């Protein structure tokens, strides 16, 4: 079961901490908003993703099950 990060664009206020903590998946556009790569995470990236989710000041970053899994 793999997971991916997703951003709630309404809650997001472009603080940018997610991009600092998970640059493998998140970059910032020219206005400071996250561009999220929804490729599934693996291994050690998961811990960094969890930290990024906790760090978001507005709780806009989410970790969820990646779709397209077997049996789902």
């Amino acid at each position: 079961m793999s997971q991916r990060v997703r951003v709630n664009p309404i809650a997001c206020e472009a603080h940018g901490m997610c991009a600092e903590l998970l640059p493998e998946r998140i970059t910032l556009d020219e206005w400071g908003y996250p561009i999220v790569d929804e490729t599934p995470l693996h291994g050690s990236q998961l811990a960094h993703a969890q930290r990024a989710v906790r760090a978001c000041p507005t709780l806009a970053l989410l970790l969820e099950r990646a779709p397209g899994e077997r049996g789902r």
Partner: protein
Amino acid sequence: MAGESPRTAGRAPEPALPRLLAGIQAHGLLTLEEHEAVHGPLPSTGGQRGRRERERADMLIAEVARSGLLGRGGAAFPTATKMQAVAGARRRPIVLANGAEGEPASLKDRTLLESLPHLVLDGAILAAEAVGADEVVVCVCESAQDAAESLALAIAERPSGRSGRAPSLRMATVPSHYVAGQESALISYLGGARALPTFTPPMPFEQGIRRRPTLVNNVETLAHLGLIARHGAPWFRQLGTPTQPGSALVTLSGAIAHPGVYEIEHGASLSSLIAAGGGSTGRVHGALIGGYAGTWIVGELLGGVAMSNEHLAAHGAALGAGVVLLLPEDACPVAESARLARWLAGQSTHQCGPCVNGLDALAGTVEAIAAGTAGAGVGGRVDRLASLVSRRGACGHPDGALNPILSALRSFQAEFAEHARYGPCDACARPGELPLPHRPIDEATVRTARAQR
């Protein structure tokens, strides 16, 4: 029951047009009596107690599935699938009939509510009984006062609420801004908040009004449902195409002799629609099909266009909410696009950074092209902005807004290139053809959003 249409009272009805618009009067609404004289009485599943009623409700959903009815609010989602999802929910659902119609160039929903409200109520009540809902809310735009009055009269003619087992009917007037009719925005508004889209999941069919599963259907979809219940799926499929059966309402406007709401069968040619509208008032520069989330098709290609998603896909277009805007030859598509882009940017609810910033930048770029101040590399800028905007909002507005802008740049390439080089043309100063009414999102939202960014 297979192959038989349920409840045919007397002889089988004509499959031909008009169907929804049958019996429509020049002014005012059809009363319940007049409505039933045209279409026959409403076949009712009689409420939700008992297995027989439950079976009849399931049969209706199965009939709708057989009919292939697709949603008429713009997304063309299979109606039966939606109904099944809501019917299968654990909590008692609610039906929301969406007549909000925030699209400025669309009149079909308010026409239905103003002149044929009982058709909509039929479908809404049947849908409620089919999914086990005890409440129906019909949403009408606050600027459509005639529609609201007719709807109120029609609701008063119906037995309501606890008497019998009919679901309770009520009307709600909703704000008129473009995105207010989006499913989650409506549900947010009916819950006492502002009419702004919310983040999904959870989807409305899982958690909607008062956290109950909510079946949101466009009022035209429900109107079709009411007739399918009477005349059956085979009757419905006698018009239209195999992938998009039945008839549909379209709003024809712009360079046409008799603008208004017309009923077509899916797959009808655009030429026949224009002919039904009295012909175009001169040569047509291009047609915007699908409204402000739709696609431009340039005049030369219009002869071969047929009004079904299957045929329109070849042009990168879709029928959407059935809006067809004909741009006259002497209008400037570049100026119109710039105005439209700016309006669409203004209709952002300012909740998501990529939408409010991206659409604003895109509008600025199109305006710069129209004014001749764009500079080199503008094509790359547009592509970059498009990629920054798509799929990064909470609702479909930014993606929808890209369609008319990008398709205009493609379809009217020569005109755009000329403007980029030489600046405004004579036609730029003409008053705009596209209706772009002033529909402010409530000011408090915009002010708060700006302060936070």
